[in-house]
């Protein structure tokens, strides 16, 4: 019974619509220019090369953040500070790394060579700020939008202070490896994303953490009475999101080999939230889907790549995005799915009636 292929269940799943939307966009690409799907092996870099790889590669910054954001949203919260933390993480990393720039001595130039420290400190500071958000929300009961707004506003300022408002560059190979390196013929960002996805899946599905998050997201009071330490769970979710923003920030900084406190992570909060919602997790908290989030993020990046590749005016991205969002969201919405479900059962009932009559 259980192994039976349950078509109606699949149709009801929110992820299904996200996948269909993604396939539709790709179909359009296929019709316009089949080369879009070309993937080749690049000798010099030892990587696979093609637009599809680009989409995966470039979506990684948002995907990684959105994975954390999924937990936050499942807890009926939001984190607006992720973009600022992306900038912060890059700033911190570059501050520690001016080592290969020594031929241009600048006052205050110093280096902590091992990558270990660079990563640890950059991620550490982001985790710290993430836990600041967590503390505000879990311990002091602030509204998430407001609590994270504080860091959204101030975070970039802190990044500027760390770097004294300067952009610094690095060609440190180990750091560049984060974005330009490759493992298994795939660019590192994709590998990092996959690893984080697996870790997050393990965390949420192989432990009871996922169920706890859903429980607290749906009914915090009842969860408390049931012995869940909801503040700890909420705190953890924001901490993870902060940490993952840091990872995303390192990838960003590594890509351009610079810190960029002004532009790094701009609007990432919106994209990450969008990815989560397109992926079928409700903003009012509760059931969540990490897979859906990944698909949501890929959809967003596909649209952007589409625009670049086909030379559409960049201004149109916004309109495109809006339309895709509307379509996906409408298809996912409760009433529409109910309506479709009802029609299906009605048809079934009608057919059954005929058979019997």
């Amino acid at each position: 019974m259980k192994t039976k292929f349950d078509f109606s269940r699949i149709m009801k799943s929110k992820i299904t619509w996200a996948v269909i939307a993604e396939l539709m966009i790709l179909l359009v690409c296929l019709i316009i220019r089949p080369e879009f799907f070309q993937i080749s092996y690049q000798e010099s870099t030892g990587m696979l090369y093609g637009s599809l790889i680009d989409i995966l590669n470039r979506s990684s910054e948002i995907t990684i953040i959105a994975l954390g954001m999924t937990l936050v949203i499942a807890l009926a919260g939001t984190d607006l500070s992720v973009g600022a933390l992306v900038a912060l993480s890059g700033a911190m990393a570059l501050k520690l790394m001016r080592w290969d720039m020594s031929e241009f001595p600048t006052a205050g130039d110093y280096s902590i060579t091992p990558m270990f420290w660079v990563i640890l400190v950059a991620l550490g500071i982001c985790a710290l700020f993430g836990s600041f958000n967590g503390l505000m929300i879990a311990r002091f009961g602030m509204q998430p939008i407001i609590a994270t707004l504080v860091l959204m506003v101030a975070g970039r300022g802190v990044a500027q202070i760390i770097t004294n408002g300067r952009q610094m560059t690095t060609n440190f190979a180990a750091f560049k490896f984060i974005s330009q390196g490759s493992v298994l013929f795939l660019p590192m960002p994709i590998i990092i994303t996959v690893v984080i996805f697996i870790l997050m899946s393990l965390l949420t599905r192989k432990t009871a953490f996922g169920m706890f998050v859903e429980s607290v997201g749906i009914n915090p009071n009842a969860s408390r009475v049931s012995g869940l330490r909801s503040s700890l769970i909420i705190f953890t979710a924001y901490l993870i999101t902060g940490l993952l923003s840091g990872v995303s920030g390192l990838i960003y900084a590594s890509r351009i080999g610079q810190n960029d406190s002004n532009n790094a992570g701009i609007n990432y909060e919106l994209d990450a939230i969008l990815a989560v919602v397109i992926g079928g997790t409700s903003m009012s908290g509760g059931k969540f889907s990490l897979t859906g989030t990944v698909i949501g993020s890929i959809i967003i990046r596909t649209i952007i790549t589409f625009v670049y590749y086909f030379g559409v005016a960049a201004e149109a991205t916004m309109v495109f995005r809006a339309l895709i969002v509307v379509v996906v969201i409408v298809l996912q919405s409760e009433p529409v799915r109910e309506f479709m479900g009802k029609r299906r059962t009605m048809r079934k009932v009608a057919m059954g009636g005929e058979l019997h009559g």
Partner: protein
Amino acid sequence: ADDALTVAFSQIGQESDWRTANTDDVCKAIQDAGWNLVYDDAQQKQENQVKALRNFITQGVDYIVFTAIVTTGWDEVLKEVQEAEIPLVLIDRFPETSFADDSWYTTYFGGDFPEEGARAARWIVNYFKSIGRGDEEINIVRLEGTTGADAQVGRSKGFDEEIAKTPNFKIVASQTGNFTGAEGQAVMESFLKSVSKIDVLWAENDNMALGAIEAIKAAGLQPGKDIIIVGCDAVKLAFEAIVNGEMNCTVECTPLMGNRVVEVIKGLEAGETFDKVVHPVEYVYDFVGGIPYTADGAAVTELASEHIAERLY
């Protein structure tokens, strides 16, 4: 408490290191001159800048130094500045107004954006001539700045007009990279896949050029060789790239405007008048050197390597 002049400076924001250098230079020059400085950073928002200007009037400052974030929308507030009889010194960007005459500002000092675009175009054409490919079909891709920004509009226009003179040089793709490295990189990635042959990349600022270099490397091509790269602004990072052979040329757009501001204000205090529009002397930097590129000789090509040490931004 003191009778030193109070000079107010309304800056756009801190969107790039170029801008930071500009801010630092102007602020430092004003303070070094012994005047009181009132500085305001508009954080990329026109409304903040209008507020700041009105606030300067309230504070009764003696001079206002002003960089307009966007060309239009200043009539009302500039009228108020005029009404308050505070002399206005424009730098970097020039606001359009509907005033009958040009008595509303004292002088403008800033880059000539169309000329910068034209210089890039001239350098490209000359370069290909110098290596004997002047008559080949040359494909150019362009990374535009933030759409609608003064610098983007000017540089695009100047480049278009100049390059049109040599029909075998063609712009085959053009897309905005919003003046940022990350977007320059992403757009370049797409160019590399959607355009079959790219000879030249013209990036309307150095940040985008630097981002694009990473994308070119990832595609297994050699930046600076397989694709000739021309940037704009002449920041230190671009010099380094040129010296490393990963970039070929950058057209200067200097952020150093402090000295001129001080000079103007001192002059105004002494009752002098100034030309309404003055452009700084700027260069084109490359590694080849020695290629004459201007018809009028107003600026000459300099070797990037010789200027690295003195670049602070």
